[in-house]
């Protein structure tokens, strides 16, 4: 048995592949590549896969993280080469790392997510809106009938220079634990902007440092503490 952690991007049309559909897409990508995943036992067999965090439909991402299990160990180089031939357009693999079979689940070590939000329509007073938002002691929103305070879930909300098309951009770092998580579209709505006029890109998932997994340091940690 071998457990692999795969860091991948999801862009272009793939952003319209939902979370459940993404499992099927990965299963088929592995099958095309001829890399045999471990299957669960039971009435209907499913390949064993674990995706750290569901990326909301329509969002792009440069770093999603998934664990998969193989019955027969293969070299990561071999796996990477096979998968690269069979990935659908809009998905790329950044890195594959073997990890301990007994390592904790991705969900249990996920603490935060970083997003870039691109506004398709100009917002004259965006800076002021951001300042006002961060100055509020609490930001109460209605999430499917449940009242949630967004404020403690925001680690960073910062204006970025405009993109090449002149669109305003916002950097967001939010809490993403199983209990406490915020979505960037919720933040945008709290800024008084219609989220359907914005594009969302997840640029990183932040994991806690305790499992010994790969690449867990993040320069924004200082910022996170500061907020």
């Amino acid at each position, binding site marked *: 048995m071998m457990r692999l952690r795969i860091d991948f991007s999801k862009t272009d*049309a793939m952003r319209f592949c939902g979370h459940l559909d993404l499992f099927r*897409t990965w299963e088929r990508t592995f*099958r095309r590549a001829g890399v045999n995943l471990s299957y669960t036992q039971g009435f209907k*067999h499913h390949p064993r896969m674990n995706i750290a965090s569901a990326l909301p*439909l*329509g969002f792009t991402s440069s770093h999603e993280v998934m664990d998969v299990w193989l019955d027969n160990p293969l070299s990561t180089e071999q796996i990477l080469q096979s998968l690269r031939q*069979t990935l*659908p*357009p809009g998905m790329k693999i950044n890195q594959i790392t073997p990890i301990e079979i007994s390592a904790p689940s991705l969900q249990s070590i996920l603490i935060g997510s970083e997003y870039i939000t691109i506004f398709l329509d100009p917002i004259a007073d965006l800076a002021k809106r951001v300042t006002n938002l961060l100055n509020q002691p609490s930001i109460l929103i209605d999430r499917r009938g449940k009242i949630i305070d967004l404020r403690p879930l925001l680690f960073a909300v910062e204006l970025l220079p405009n993109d090449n098309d002149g669109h305003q951009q916002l950097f967001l770092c939010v809490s993403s634990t199983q209990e406490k998580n915020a979505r960037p579209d919720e933040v945008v709505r709290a800024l008084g902007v219609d989220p*359907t006029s914005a594009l969302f890109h997840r640029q990183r998932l932040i994991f806690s440092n305790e499992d010994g997994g790969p690449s867990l340091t993040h320069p924004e940690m200082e910022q996170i503490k500061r907020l």
Partner: protein
Amino acid sequence: MSDTPLEIQQALQRILPKVQKPGRYSGGEFNQILKDWTKVDLRVCLVFPDIYDIGMSNLGLAILYELINNRKDALAERAFAPWLDMEEQLRQANLPLYALESKHPLTDFDILGFTLPYESLYTNALNILDLAHIPLFSNQRNSHHPLIIAGGHATFNPEPMHAFIDAFVIGEGEEVIQEILNVYSSWKQDQSLLSNSDDPANSKSRRQELLRRLVKIDGIYIPSFYKAYYHTDQTFSHLECTEPSAPLRVRKRIVAKLPPPPTHFIVPFIETIHDRIPIEIMRGCTRGCRFCQAGMVTRPVRERPIEEIIFAIQESLKNTGYEEVGLLSLSSSDYTNILDLINAVNSHFSHDHLSVSLPSLRIESLSVELMNSLSLARRNGFTLAPEAATDRMRQIINKQVSTDQLLDTVDAIYRNGWSTVKLYFMIGHPLETLTDVQAIADLSKMVLRIGRSHIGNRAQVNVGVSTFIPKPHTPFQWTVCDSEEQIKAKLALLKDQLRGKGLKLTWNPPDATYLEAWLSKGDRRMSAVIYQAWRLGAKFDAWNDQRNFSAWKQAFELNQLDPAFYIHRPRSLQEAFPWDHIDIGVRKKYLLQDYQWSLTGKPRADCRTQCYACGILPVFKELRQNNPGDAWKCPEVQPKLKETTIAHDAVTN
């Protein structure tokens, strides 16, 4: 049109986050083919007029997509009916319907090829033309508009859609699509040599020139080259050719031998209704069920060799990564070497976490053995289609299975570990009485009792009941549909009796039946009804929660047509039908003889063993001679039998 692919792409950025399942509208799936438009001369958009989730499971679309894209000089893209939410967004943004691959609006294409497998897609086809900003009526279009062609089983009666479609493809499309593209290509080249005048009259005559060239292709029906006449009693009289080169009868096209199947299926992001690799193992059916249009229009039976099927599965698995394969045909048990095929599938794919479905099995215990030996089959229910519950009724419809045989089969199914049996029946067959309907309930309960005797309360029987529609080109085309009172009474009986633990009944609402019946039996006057119904808001007529029945009734009224005329009126044996000029290879007098046999319950045996001279063999004699081999499953004709059959015929064709 100023909508460029880039503009459409940009507009979609705002629209797609607002709709359900945006993966329906994004394109960009694995195995999609996106060609450079500047390097390709012929641009075809294949249109399936229902939502993506349904259309992407259509095998015909996949076949044509691969065939056209295999040509260096042509490209094929896809478009589907947008669901209500997306339609609203498109209309709000005044965005034309576009093809998924390149995001070019449909107006940029040379040819739009509509797939019309069933009649309830007609209003969607109109809606798609409207969303594409293309005039709905054929006579309003000119050489600047895409050529609108259509094929599929519904088009064996093309008349209801005659006003909207420029050219129908009758029969199998694999070869004829190439001929259409060749003709289009040479016409297009000739056009580029002509002056670039935008005079509308000129543009119309160029369109006419294209149609005149297309009509020379066998199997192409150009409805605008004909005029229909009716008797004073409103029945159809005849068609008159208004174009000298148009044929009086249009014979369907078939391929002599099934070409290798497609293996580069597009893998959608979202789940589709049949989310699997479809491999057609056989085309046509020799059983001759009298209600079945597919069984009549897809003759002769042609099988694919086992090696070709296995190779196609291997290739498709490698190319798509799908985890399920469907081996498709109208009657799997009739595939000559079905056991060898199953063994080959088992030995090649048993280590692949693959499931294989083998639908359309005959009602006999051998089918249970077949499914048992198919180790990769998913055991989620065993489907049987007795169609009727009494031996008498089954003799009338020529479904040759006895109740005893059915019960033996059911016994074997439960004995071998299945817990669910699905039974498909039809009500409304000719000569059916309430006794025959009562028998459906009795038989279903008997099946449940057998199940319980094996596995107790785990036994489940799902009963699906649809209502008979007398389809064109079948022996029952002379008969009528049940009245609404009859259907309601029959359904009420079944709903009352088929309830309780272990029994589940599903049925088609009468509205759905009638709509399909009107449209399948319609003549040219139905075009105005379809148009009016669409104007009044009818679309997605195949969807029980969307069908706008009152719009249809109103559309009939506005056109002073009586829906009952089309489906409740017994037809004289001499009556000319609006679809008689479509030649399916099976003679009308053969169908009539079969109808007359049905009235006395006289069966017609499987024609694999004995030829009944339906007409296919003489019609395609040359084709068969030029393609020797054993792919066709018609037996050699015995001259003696042929003579008696002819002597028996009541009418001439």
